[in-house]
Every structure is written in structure tokens, then in C-alpha cells.
């Protein structure tokens, strides 16, 4: 079943170059956290991860030339996960709240050896 040449034919990014950028970003995300600075770690590790995900999605998955609602669908699902996190974190992440205390979890945190360095 031959495919008629899609409009993507012309706007194919140079894949090897994109790959190079991704590898460079990988190096950044490995080196960054070595400085033990919390903010630097956050930016290099997680910021870079989001950037790499964007590059793969845009250039390798051709989302930039795909129908717009496909991107809305995928981003919508990610937003749903943030909503889940927002709704559940006050109960699971925190071990204390309004008129309740998660004593067992607090005990687990207290008993563990003091963290070498707080992440």
C-alpha cells in the first residue's frame, strides 16, 4: 500500500542533529546534579527531561504536523495526572493535616537513619 507523500515530506527536521541535542541534554542532566545544589539539580534533571520529551515528541513523533487535537489529547491526559496529584497529595504526601496525623508514616520517617543529605 504505497503512501502518498505527506506534507511532512519537506519539513523533516534533521534527525541526527536532534539526536545530538538530546545526547547533549542527557550529559547536562547527569552533570548538573553533581553540584549538589538543589535548584541546579531540579532544573537540570527535571527541566531537561521535559525539554527532551518535547524534542522527541515534536521531531520524532512529528506532532508539529499532526492534527492539533492529537496534541490536545496527549497534553490533556498529562493534565489529568497533575489533577490526580493535586487531589491526592494532601492526604498521601503530607503526614499531618487538619485534625489528623499519620503517626505510622511519621514513625517510619523518624526511625530511618538521618538522611545523609536532604534531597
Amino acid at each position, binding site marked *: 500500500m504505497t503512501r502518498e507523500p505527506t506534507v511532512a515530506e519537506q519539513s523533516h527536521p534533521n534527525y541526527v542533529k536532534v539526536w545530538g541535542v538530546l545526547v547533549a541534554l542527557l550529559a547536562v542532566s547527569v552533570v548538573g546534579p553533581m553540584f549538589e545544589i538543589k535548584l541546579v539539580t531540579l532544573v537540570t534533571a527535571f527541566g531537561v527531561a521535559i525539554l527532551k520529551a518535547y524534542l522527541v515528541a515534536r521531531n520524532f513523533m512529528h506532532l508539529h504536523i499532526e492534527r492539533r487535537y492529537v496534541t490536545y489529547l496527549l497534553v490533556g491526559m498529562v493534565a489529568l495526572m497533575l489533577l490526580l496529584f493535586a487531589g491526592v497529595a494532601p492526604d498521601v504526601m503530607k503526614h499531618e493535616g*487538619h*485534625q*489528623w*496525623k*499519620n*503517626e*505510622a*508514616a511519621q*514513625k517510619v520517617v523518624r526511625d530511618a537513619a538521618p538522611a545523609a543529605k536532604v534531597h
Partner: protein
Amino acid sequence: MLTRYVEAASSYAQDIDGLITLITVLVGFWFLVAQAVLFGLIFRFRAKQGVKAQYISGEEKSQKRWVTIPHMLVLVCDVFIIVGAVRVWTDVKQTLPPADHTVRIVSQQWAWTFIQPGPDGKLDTEDDIKTIDELHVKEGATYHFQLLSRDVLHSFSVPAFRLKQDAVPGRLITGWFKPTRPGAYDIQCAEICGIGHGIMAARLFVETPEEHQKWMEKLSPVARAPTPQAEAEQENTPPAEGASAGAGAE
């Protein structure tokens, strides 16, 4: 309105019953209107010989008004209910009035254990009074309860008090109630907790201050006697986490 089915024996029972009455009125009105319109239309527009149905797209403003106006009114009723609900909820679940007494409620697979401070008024002291499946409280006093579970989810539910709070293993949940009518009321478990869930019945006795005092004296001197003392001692260590497997009913 709810008191026709269950007694109101705590201070906030009236607030919750009032909210339920408000909801019944608002929701009942819309229910009856909708049913009346529905049956009216069925009867009015039943198939008659030679009468064709009308062609109404419902897209024009004038036609859609028939749906959007009730739609808005329902929204307005919802706002009233929300305001009522949030107000009562903050009184019952989000504020802790100063406590005259505190009781620790320990739920486990298939029994309720109540630990009340003895005459010295402080928990975790020798003279604590520990009762199984029986809770004696004084009418008119504000009680804080510390609710915890030793094994699975349970739920401390006193219908007469309009009180319900799940006991989650690992969590200590505080709440309050203030008994207002002497009498004996049911305590039920409202969260399925295994084969004994249906037999986890306990009784809650609301006594006048004098009766309560008599009960306290009757129990605490007896509690001085060695045997229950040692037993109370052993039981009284703060609730061990990771409770022993499936402790049978006391």
C-alpha cells in the same frame, strides 16, 4: 425531619438535620415538578388519530429557554445547598471546641475499645478506664475523640449523634461530639472490615452527670484492684503499630 427515623442526641444533630430538611425541600420540589411535567406531557401528547407531531429543533433561543431557565434555577438551589453544607461541615469536622473530656477510641477486627481518663483527667495514666464495646459519656460535656485502628479500616458511626468518622490504620483522627440527650444508643462499624463487620456492635450510654459520677466511682476504685490494674497497664502502652494478626474479639 430526620428525627422521625432516628433520635437526635448530640449538639450538631440539629444542624445536620436542618441541612437535610433544606435539601429535602429544594430537591423534593424539583423532583415533583419534573415528574409532573413528564407525566403531563406523556398524557397531553399521546398519539391521537390524524394528529402529527410538531417539528421543534430546540436550537432557537425562544425554545431553548424552556430548558435553560430550569437549568439556572437548579444551579441557584445548588448554591443554597452548598453554602448550607459547607457551613455545617466546618462546624462539625473542621473546628474543635475546647474539650471537657477526651476519649481514645481504638477499633480493631471486630471490637471497639474505649480508653477514658480516670479521675485524674489525663489519658495514659494508671487510672485510665478501659471499656470494651461500651462507652459511658456525660450529658452536656464536650468530648474530643482520638480515633485509630489497629488493623483494617473501620468507621466509628453513632447514628443518634449524626457522627461518622473512618478509622484508618496508621492515622490518629480527632473529632468532637457533645451528647445532649441521656439514653443508650448504637455504635456501628460503617466500613466493611471482614467477617465480623456485622457483629461489631457497641453501646453508647449518655448519662446525667450524677449517674456518670456514680459509674466512674463504681469503676475506678475497682480498677485500683491489682488484676485489672496489671491488665490495664499492659494494654495501655500507646497502640502498637502493625498490630498482631487478626486479634480475636476481646
